[in-house]
């Protein structure tokens, strides 16, 4: 290796280093890809890393709901997640937007109470809610995506709910 390297000269070294970096990048890229595949979620909605700050802001603008009883609020959230799907499927945009905001407001309070829940579950719910708020505000309504997001929310909240009822 060293002999070949010496033979390349200055320009050759740059070319060689570039080549090595490319190989390293390709290798690490391939490994991560394969690894991500093995760790695939199996869920239909994913990738919270795609959130932009502006999208997160939509959730930030919503005020946390005042909660007297955590258990009742959790039940309301569960119920809203189901009725939201019905509103979307029946094309009731106004109702869907109202329910999405209420879910976000409830979640902002509930998330603080779910101290025993896995942090990644909380992040996923937040990502789903951001997605829901974004989609209900879009002029072009993607009902399939909204139901997919709602399903992800349903599964995520089901996992977190026990931590709210302790």
């Amino acid at each position, binding site marked *: 290796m060293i002999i070949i390297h010496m033979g390349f000269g200055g320009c050759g070294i740059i070319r060689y280093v570039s080549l090595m970096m490319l190989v390293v990048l390709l290798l690490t890229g391939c490994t991560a*890809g*394969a*690894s*991500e*595949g*093995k*760790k*695939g*979620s*199996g*869920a*239909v909605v994913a990738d919270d890393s795609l959130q932009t700050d502006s999208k997160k802001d939509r959730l930030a603008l919503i005020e946390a709901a005042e909660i007297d009883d955590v258990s009742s609020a959790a039940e309301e959230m569960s*119920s809203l*997640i*189901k*009725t939201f*799907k*019905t509103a979307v*499927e029946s094309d009731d945009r106004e109702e869907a937007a109202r329910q999405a905001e209420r879910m976000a407001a409830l979640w902002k309070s509930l998330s603080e109470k779910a101290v025993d829940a896995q942090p990644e579950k909380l992040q996923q719910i937040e990502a789903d809610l951001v997605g829901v708020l974004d989609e209900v505000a879009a002029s072009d309504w993607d*009902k*399939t995506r909204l*139901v*997919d997001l709602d*399903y992800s929310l*349903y*599964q995520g909240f*089901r*996992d977190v709910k026990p931590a709210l009822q302790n």
Partner: protein
Amino acid sequence: MIRRKMLSLLLAVALIVALVPATVAGAAVKSVNVTIDGKKQTYSVSPRIENGRTLVPYRAIAEALGGTVSYDAKSKKATIKKSGQTIELTQGSKSARINGSAVTLDAAPLNVSGTLLVPLRFVGESLGVWVTWNQSSSTAVLETKRTFKHDLGSTTLNGVPKRVVVLFNGGVDISVLLKVKPVGAVESYIQQPFYEYIRSNLIGTKTLGDETQPNVEAIVALKPDVIIATKDRHEGIYGQLSKIAPTIVTKDLADWQDNLQVMSKVLNKEDIATSFLADWKKQVADFKSKLPAKDKGAAISIIRVNPNGTARAYNTGFAYKIFQELGFSTPKAQLAVGQEIIPVASQEQISLLDGDYIFDFTTDWDGDGAILQHQKTWTSSALWKNLNAVKNNKYYKVNSVTWNLSGGALAAKLMLDDLYFYFGLE
């Protein structure tokens, strides 16, 4: 005459008064029997039911099973040694130790006339025998060996297994439900090493490769005392597995209820399985009662897109069985094909994917999104948009782990719960 009548009345009252306490006492102290391998046992202090718990004389049972017992009167501690295992119990305390590891009893051991009575369940857990309760004869049935007949033979176990190896994903899920941590288990198809919904319960369990091709050398290294396999996947290596350890084979990978029952009998956890299945039946009945008339018997199409870009519909498998149990039907066009897995190679056959509802558990196996691109090609076509389910907003992409890849009891419950979401039921 009057005096004679009065005397009769008094006698009758006296008789009733005398009988009532005896009846009440009889109801309170119902006799409890114990059998070991079918032989009725007799004890100086009788087993009994206290606060709903069956308590049995531990020392006599341990000795009958070949254990040795010592008792320290000062600390009120009993130490039992059996088959290389040490069990430490203290009178009045729910905390015990098995080989140094802390365990909690359902109820504290009770001293009755110098005999320590312990909860029946603890006998099984600590002494490695199968314990079941026969309600009709009030008998605690203890078995020191069990023989399991299965499709590939007959397997005898000489004690409740402790080093358990599970070779199919549905079985791994069931082991979590039964609170038995396997020493080794096959890894999940995605989300490796184990599916996220059960992973936290499997910390320390060694992975043994793929369900379709488990790593035999790794199984040998674990020195299991039972291997739980399934005929669909492991018929070809059954002979090899049987030489490593007693191997029990379930008959159908997708029949989670049968798999649960078999595994619970092997692992001495029949009470958990019975309770889970009773709860399942209740929830199935609840779902059916809440399902609106328009959806009763709806034709359900269960589909996936394949890595090569073709698609398929399922008239078999885990999700299909659950839909059948819930009273749904199969699309007529699919039934007409007469195959369990219906290949749909091109858009010309797309109507085979239709139903009143379409549930799609396409899996992104490689994590590169290629298969999702194929899925998008299918769902973007004009022919797709013309399917009844699609036109009626009844096409759903569902969790491939809990609807297809796992196939366990806990997954079944999650899938059923998902159906409350999809059918809008409270």
